[in-house]
């Protein structure tokens, strides 16, 4: 057991931190003014991507990256602390070609793409030339139970015909977004976990319409959380991922590393919020003393530090487990961090907002926006309750095995 980052990780952390300080942070005002001018893809992003790729800070999320693919292959444990640093600026991951949902999509394609799919979609994604989205959640059913997904993917000759409605499809409004991985029912009469398939669907295919970019917590993301209707959309049968009926299994597999990334970015946001809170507590005086000398503010700072450090350790442990034993063996840990980290983020940001008073409600700090985003994460990708249910089931199973072992050892 060793709680120190490896030398390689420390070097990468320093490099990413320096990159953020030198290039990303100074670009924030440009990014902001482009966005305010209605630009959905600020120009600075492409410039920064070039710089990042030149430093080989590229595709850091993909442990299986091949030598002939651009970027460097890191383990989940190596990548996690880098995601934390990137997470401090909401749009920074894209600069390193490490942004969701592309990361998860690239993982899937890396595992299952046919040579043609690889050339058509994976290669451009790895090179950061296009972006992609993942169309799973549906407005009409509780999608945290993936077997509920209703969109139909019907085979007709050499094509699949897609009909359905999806929402909260992140990234679909990005001007580079060219393709969606659509999950739907291909075999309505099949066994529940073999009913679904995933197909690569170009966003410019006839019948695909982005109905709206949904404001989430009053905030319109430039990349979008979109509602998309698929009406008689036809794609070549060759666009199936892996095989018919594999949709549910792929969806399960896809979630592990992606959740680690999300959680580590959230940890970075917690650290940013705590720094802001400490700064405010040092500067602002009420009732004759600085805020940090008010016991309740000091307690908030301490609790935030405890919660963040604990959460980080658990996320890192989950990353380590995926590296060592695979995502399936880490299923319990992954569910734990997914239920935990957004709660920590909202708690830390909430305290920071309260420390800032009315200013904390405004966009003069990033806190209100981080807080609402944390609140969304308590629901997105399955609400807390679903993940807690998973943890409880695993725990009950482990406890019953333990009881059985005790009974057996007493009998022997």
């Amino acid at each position, binding site marked *: 057991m060793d709680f120190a980052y490896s030398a390689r990780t420390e070097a990468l952390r320093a490099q990413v931190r320096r990159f953020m300080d030198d290039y990303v942070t100074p670009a924030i005002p440009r990014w902001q003014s482009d966005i305010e001018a209605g630009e959905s893809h600020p120009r600075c992003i492409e410039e920064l991507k070039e710089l990042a790729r030149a430093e080989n800070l590229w595709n850091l999320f993909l442990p299986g990256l091949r030598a002939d693919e651009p970027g460097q292959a890191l383990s989940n444990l190596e990548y996690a602390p880098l995601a934390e640093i990137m997470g401090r600026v909401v749009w920074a991951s894209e600069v390193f070609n490490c942004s969701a949902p592309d990361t998860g999509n690239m993982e899937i394609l890396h595992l299952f793409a046919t040579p043609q799919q690889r050339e058509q979609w994976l290669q451009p994604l790895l090179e950061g030339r296009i972006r992609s989205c993942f169309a799973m*959640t549906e*407005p009409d*059913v*509780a*999608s*945290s*139970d993936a077997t*509920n997904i209703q969109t139909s993917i019907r085979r007709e000759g050499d094509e699949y015909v897609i009909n359905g409605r999806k*929402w*909260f499809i992140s990234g679909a409004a990005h001007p580079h977004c060219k393709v969606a991985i659509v999950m739907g029912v291909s075999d309505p009469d099949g066994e529940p976990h073999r009913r679904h398939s995933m197909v690569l669907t170009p966003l410019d295919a006839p019948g695909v319409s982005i109905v709206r970019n*949904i*404001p*989430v*917590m*009053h905030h319109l993301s430039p990349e979008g959380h979109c509602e998309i209707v698929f009406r008689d959309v036809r794609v070549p049968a060759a666009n199936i991922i892996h095989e018919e009926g594999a949709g549910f299994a792929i969806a399960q597999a896809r979630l592990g590393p992606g959740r680690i990334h999300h959680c580590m970015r959230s940890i970075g946001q917690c650290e940013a919020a705590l720094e802001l809170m400490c700064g405010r507590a040092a500067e*602002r*005086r*009420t*009732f004759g003393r600085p805020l940090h000398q*008010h016991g*309740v503010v000091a307690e908030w700072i301490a609790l935030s530090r405890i919660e963040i450090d604990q959460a980080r350790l658990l996320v890192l442990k989950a990353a380590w487990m995926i590296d060592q034993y695979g995502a399936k063996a880490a299923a319990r840990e992954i569910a734990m961090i997914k239920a935990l980290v957004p709660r920590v983020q909202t708690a830390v940001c*909430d305290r920071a*907002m*309260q420390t800032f*008073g*009315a*200013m*904390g*409600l*405004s*966009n*003069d700090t990033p806190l*209100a926006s981080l807080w*609402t985003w944390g*609140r*969304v994460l*308590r*629901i*997105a990708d399955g*609400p*807390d*309750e679903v993940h*807690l*249910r998973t943890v409880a089931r695993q725990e009950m199973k482990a406890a019953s095995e333990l009881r059985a072992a005790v009974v057996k050892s007493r009998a022997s």
Partner: protein
Amino acid sequence: MQTEGALARGREIAARVESFVRERIVPYEHDPRLGAHGPAAELVAELRELARAAGLLTPHILPDGCHLTHRETALVLRAAGLSPLGPVALNVAAPDEGNMYMLGRIATPEQKEHFLNPIVEGRARSAFFMTEPASGNGAGSDPSMMKTTAEPDGDYWIVNGRKAFITGADGARVGIVMAKSPEGATMFLVDLPHPAVRIVRVLDTIDSSMPGGHAVVAIDNLRVHRNQILGESGLGFKYAQVRLAPARLTHCMRWLGACTRAQEIAADYAVRREAFGKTLIEHEGVGFMLADNLIDLKQAELMIDWCADVLDTGASAISESSMTKAAVAETLFRVADRCVQVMGGSGVTGDTIVEQVFREVRAFRIYDGPTEVHKWSLARKIRKEALQRLSP
């Protein structure tokens, strides 16, 4: 404590307000004229015309200028709050409602005629210029640190200063400006817009129910006639106290109404939506959140009614309203948070008002005194009482 009989008048008005809000105002909840800085002026006017036609505009002030009791007001404002648009439509929203209360008690007949009546009639909005920017060691929420000054100049006063988070300043026609005169804190009534009162910017905040949003304001050499002083020079804080407890409480009333509706929406969603083979509400995780809300809503209601009873005895209810404001804001936030969680993805979109209520109530934990400031003063009260108990 008031008997059922004495509340009959309030109940009757509240019942009419509730029907009106549910039937006439709720359909406007997706109106495109709802902006980040509150409903647009045109929408406000349209809604108020509906209320006027229904005989429900400014329902808490009787034709003779008297106000309902605070307990009655609680019934009416809860009903108005069932939609975030209700209070604006009915002209019982902040800050106008508190301003009308204060002006009704302190203004001269001439001042009432000129400043109060247009507000009561729903034709003008008002703003209360008290809070100052925190940076530069301004007052923030601590009024004793006020830096805005008023200097006498013959029959006039010259006011200079900076104000922050002034709700509704943008678009207001009546301003109540607090400044420090040689006698102390003083309130001035000002016709708006006025070239010396400049909206520096309207903040982007997480709440969006109040017309005009929250503004940063610069006051440069504002010249006000002494007739426009509210009450006497130097008594500004005393008058602010008149407004203080009732205005805290009416916020609680309105947001209780909003959270009551959010709970209805969440419960309706939870009995229809299915997951893992049963309706959401049959999952204990969901059912218990709604049960907690049921309890919390009742507790908020009881606190509000208790504090209103204290105000109706004529007491200033400073510590009672601190207890109520702190408790109700935190309680309602938990309620709204659970409603969001029950609603899942729909809970974070604008498809229902649940998302807005959640943001609004988050802001309510800070404005009108953050929870911690109220607890701080309650702790002092406890200390004082314990010391008295120990050495009477």
